[in-house]
């Protein structure tokens, strides 16, 4: 992994209103095969992408939210959610899907993928990347 680049996928938009959340996820899944150092950031309206119990039957579009659950299987387990963005929207971590991964360095123990961070912490995370892809 020493040659790996640090890729951050920044998600700032609500799901369904536009396609960016869905097509961003498609990039992440394809990108997982490239063995890079991948992180995802959810801030601003992007935090709405992870809200649980999405049901698109009446809307008549594909519900892509279950796919977030698969991220752990793709070794995508650094998922940063911004505290200030949640608070501004009246959300807590309990409103979001519970995303986990199995830690191969810790006897495959199941661990949380989501880490709630402050805007200041997220700013440092962004600064530490090689590539920032925004959707």
């Amino acid at each position, binding site marked *: 992994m020493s040659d790996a680049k640090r890729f951050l996928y920044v998600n700032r938009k609500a799901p369904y209103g536009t396609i960016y959340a869905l097509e961003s996820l498609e990039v992440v899944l394809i990108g997982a095969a490239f063995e890079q150092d991948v992180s995802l950031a959810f801030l601003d309206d992007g935090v709405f992408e992870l*809200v649980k119990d999405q049901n698109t039957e*009446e809307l008549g579009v594909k519900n892509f939210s279950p796919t977030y659950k698969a991220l752990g299987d793709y070794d995508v387990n650094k998922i940063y959610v911004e505290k200030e963005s949640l608070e501004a929207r*009246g959300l807590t971590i309990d409103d979001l899907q519970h995303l986990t991964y199995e830690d191969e360095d810790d006897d495959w123990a199941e661990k949380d993928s989501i880490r709630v961070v402050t805007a200041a912490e997220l700013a440092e995370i962004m600064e530490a990347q090689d590539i920032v892809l925004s959707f």
Partner: protein
Amino acid sequence: MLHIVNKSPFERNSLDSCLQHAVKGSAVLLIEDGIYGAMKGTQKSGTVEAAAKDLKFFALSADLKARGIDQDRLIDGVEVVDYNGFVDLVAEYDKSQSWL
């Protein structure tokens, strides 16, 4: 008049602008990402709560459900309608304005 708002109030100025231009007795229908404006307990709830004295607020059920926003999270007085209700609102009010 029926005002239709389809953008998140956290991302854009369209709900704010709509509320500044909706006269008393008008209706505001929140659809697509606009339904986030109907949530209580957010940074933006106060704006809608204040406006609800003079305006009727509606939110589209298909868009609430798609986004996992349960009806009990909505500001008191916001009425949930389905697409049939959307059609009825368009028929009931003499014209509509979409705040794109």
